[in-house]
């Protein structure tokens, strides 16, 4: 069976205009938010409902072609790229809120719905959707489910897996199943937990029932300036040990502050600030008011030069700009930006950061650090130019060393972005062969033929990918 037959079959399912097959049309789909890895798909389809997704999956099976779901393509681990010349199932047309049940604090949505749009849609009911990754203005709920996305509020609110009640999905054999329950309790195995964070390798999610949270009574945002990152981290330690669970604890280091203040995102921070800590508190009014004082105490005990409380929404936004502008500011320094993602036990942050900076210096790379201090999730960002082969090699080498340092400190190689293609080989830093083989058993129960998003999560040497990847369909132009 040939590619043109595949395309014809797909067109028969989704319609001519919803199946992309010209090389130039496929080109922008060769990568997602991570530009270092790319693979050309055979075709891209944009189905409009579950039925079409199921039929596409069955067609792909008939043709022996793998497939991969894609949301907005903002992922940073290459999870949405089609390996082995697979078909990209673009879910952006399944983008509606199907039902809001405010009384039971849940909503039923389609996977292509943008995260921020969901929170906006339920706000009139005094509710919001808690997992809010930094890309929430663009990323989709389906993508969030695949990666078990987090964001700055996970310390208090948890990640996506704590906010999904049920799913409808198309299994790799084309069957449509429902897992989970709107009640939030299972009467069987917790398959939801397995699928969330499954990185799109266990099936294609076509409907999601989400748990909504009540908008807190009071929200306060504080900005504290410290002489250095170690002091800021120690302040965070005091805060957490004292029993407080702030909604967000973000730290931005000196290098980032310099970049931000030199850019159009300048938030008015003192240029010589060693580190900035952004704290968000939410909850009952009397509790929040008292917590502000405790934050001040903790910050003061670690030599904070200043602790400001945002007086209104505009000022709160200005504080957050210091954190959110980091990405853009670093992005302007060079054509490419590598946003790393790793986790360490919180207490180990200062020493790990020091070693991360040393690694970047040794490899002569421009690095800045932004991190979710409360849960130990670091994002070392490296500005570089991928056309400089030598610099690219140094970026990759530095990446590996950073992950090794994090694992040695008792951490994990991904806090939010997932493994995807990017970190497949590093799985062995964390897990034994037996551990990885156990994961393969889960995969095999859903996808014994490895047709659903192959080439992700597991190392290419051995394990699930020993079914040798054959190049099928269109042979992509290499990056």
């Amino acid at each position, binding site marked *: 069976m040939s590619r043109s037959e595949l395309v014809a079959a797909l067109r028969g399912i989704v319609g001519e205009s919803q199946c992309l097959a*010209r090389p130039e049309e496929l*080109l*922008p789909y060769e990568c997602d938010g991570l530009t270092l890895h790319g693979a050309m798909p055979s075709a891209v389809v944009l189905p409009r409902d579950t039925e079409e997704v199921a039929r596409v999956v069955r067609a792909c099976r008939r043709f022996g072609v793998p497939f991969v779901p894609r949301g*907005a393509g*903002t992922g940073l681990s290459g999870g949405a790229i089609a390996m082995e010349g697979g078909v990209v199932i673009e879910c*952006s047309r399944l983008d509606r809120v199907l039902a809001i049940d405010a009384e039971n604090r849940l909503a039923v949505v389609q996977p292509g719905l*943008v995260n921020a749009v969901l929170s906006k849609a339920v706000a009139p009911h005094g509710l919001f959707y808690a997992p809010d990754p930094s890309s929430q203005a663009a990323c989709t709920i389906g993508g969030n489910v695949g990666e078990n996305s987090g964001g700055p509020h996970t310390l208090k609110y948890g990640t996506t897996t704590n906010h999904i009640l049920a799913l409808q999905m198309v299994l790799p054999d084309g069957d449509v199943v429902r897992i989970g329950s709107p009640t939030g309790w299972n009467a069987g195995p917790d398959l939801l937990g397995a699928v969330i964070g499954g990185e799109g390798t266990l099936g294609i999610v076509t409907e999601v029932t989400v748990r909504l949270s009540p908008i807190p009574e009071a929200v306060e945002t504080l900005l504290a300036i410290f002489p250095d990152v170690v002091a800021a981290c120690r302040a965070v330690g005091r805060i957490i040990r004292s029993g407080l669970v702030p909604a967000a604890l973000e730290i931005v280091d000196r290098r980032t502050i310099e970049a931000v203040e030199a850019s159009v995102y300048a938030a008015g921070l003192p240029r010589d600030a060693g580190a900035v800590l952004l704290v968000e508190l939410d909850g009952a009014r009397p509790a929040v008011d008292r917590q502000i004082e405790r934050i001040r105490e903790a910050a003061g005990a670690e030599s904070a030069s200043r602790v400001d409380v945002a007086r209104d929404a505009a000022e709160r936004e200005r504080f957050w700009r210091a954190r959110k502008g980091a990405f853009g500011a670093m992005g302007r320094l060079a054509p490419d930006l590598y946003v790393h993602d790793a986790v360490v036990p919180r207490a180990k942050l200062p020493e790990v950061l020091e070693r991360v900076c040393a690694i970047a210096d040794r490899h002569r790379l421009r690095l800045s650090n932004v991190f979710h201090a409360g849960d130990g999730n670091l994002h070392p960002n490296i500005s570089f130019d991928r056309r400089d082969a030598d610099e690219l090699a140094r970026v990759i080498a530095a990446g590996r060393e950073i992950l090794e340092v994090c694992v040695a400190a008792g951490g994990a190689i991904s806090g939010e972005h997932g493994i995807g293609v990017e970190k497949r080989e590093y799985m062995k830093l964390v897990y034994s062969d037996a551990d990885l083989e156990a994961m393969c058993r889960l995969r095999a129960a859903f996808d014994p033929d490895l047709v659903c998003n192959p080439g992700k999560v597991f190392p290419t040497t051995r394990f699930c990918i020993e079914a040798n990847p054959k190049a099928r369909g269109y042979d992509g132009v*290499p990056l």
Partner: protein
Amino acid sequence: MSAPPEGPLAALHPGTLDCVHCGLCLPVCPTYRETGRETSSPRGRIYLMRATAEGRVPLGDLLAEEAYLCLGCRACETACPSGVRFGRLVEATRAVVETAGLRQGAAKRIETWALRELIPRPRRLRAAFDALRVAQVLRLDRLAARVLPSGMRELAEAAPSVPARSARRPLPERVDAQGERRGRVGLFVGCIMPELFGDVHRATIEVLARNGFEVVAPRAQGCCGALHAHAGDPSFAHDLARRNVEAFRDAGVDAIVVNSAGCGAAMREAGHWLPGTGDAFAASVRDVCELLDEVGLRAPTGRVEGSVCYDDPCHLVHGQGVRDAPRRLLAKIEGLTLVAHDDPTSCCGAAGIYNLTHRAMSNAVLARKMEALAAADPDWIASGNPGCLMQLQAGVARAGLRARVVHPVELLARAYAAAP
């Protein structure tokens, strides 16, 4: 491994490198919202531009299609954390597409003729509108709509209703300031505005005068060239800009006031189009709401009753960064309540002549806008761009809303006129 860029797109290649591929532009892009296709998003288009510049794919139809499917609203620029100048990239791409002759056909030829031979020539343009006016009065347009093939019918339906000649009388060349004098400004009149929106110009002059400005409208000025730049004809646009630079240079004005967002955005590009000669001109351009907000509006004392939704013209909010000033001015009108509607900064689908060249997409985008406005159900809809005004008027008629569509200065003028 990709080759270093050469060929016609080489010049815009460095601009494409600013993109870090984050995807934050996708949700604000009208064409991505309608199609869900990466190729019809700013990020996807940049990727294609870059790949074409690097020789990975030949310059072809898809890039040409997408370059023109883009509305040029530049909402992506506002959302972009990396400062990508997408508007410029798309215009540069269109220029390359034209030079390569990738757009052919009768429609293209008519468009080129209209842009070069009709729009920048006031007398011809007037004659054309006179003819259109006659046709409309005699309802020939409706007859034509019935007999024409569907594509042309839509064009006929989209034609704006031309006001009577009396409303299209020439503007005064100079108007004195009222009250304490704050300065002298030049009014940019443009090409379409005097024919279809003469009232807006008169309202503009009135409001400026009442706010202490002497207003002059140099006769030597002409079309701003925005439509030409957007149609991949930059050299023609630059020539038009040069003419305006000269026309205003000797006018001795403190600012050049524009009430058409599309024109204002283009005029602010003069420094880029005409390096050196255009800088001072570009720096002196102000949108009328921007200027009044800057100097402090002399609040009108009359009342204008009702609710108003202010809908941001793309080239004002994204193209010039002016968002709150018009709202602040409207808030100063007694009796008028500013009502928010969903997504005011998203495009209405007018996009210059886009609503003629890409009717389906334009209508889809407009439908979303009208849904938001219908939910707010205001008495007035205010927008500071003629193209948007026409599009919104068409949308209001189609959706059966009761709102009246006006330029913000028209509401200010009403308020001044209603002074007790």
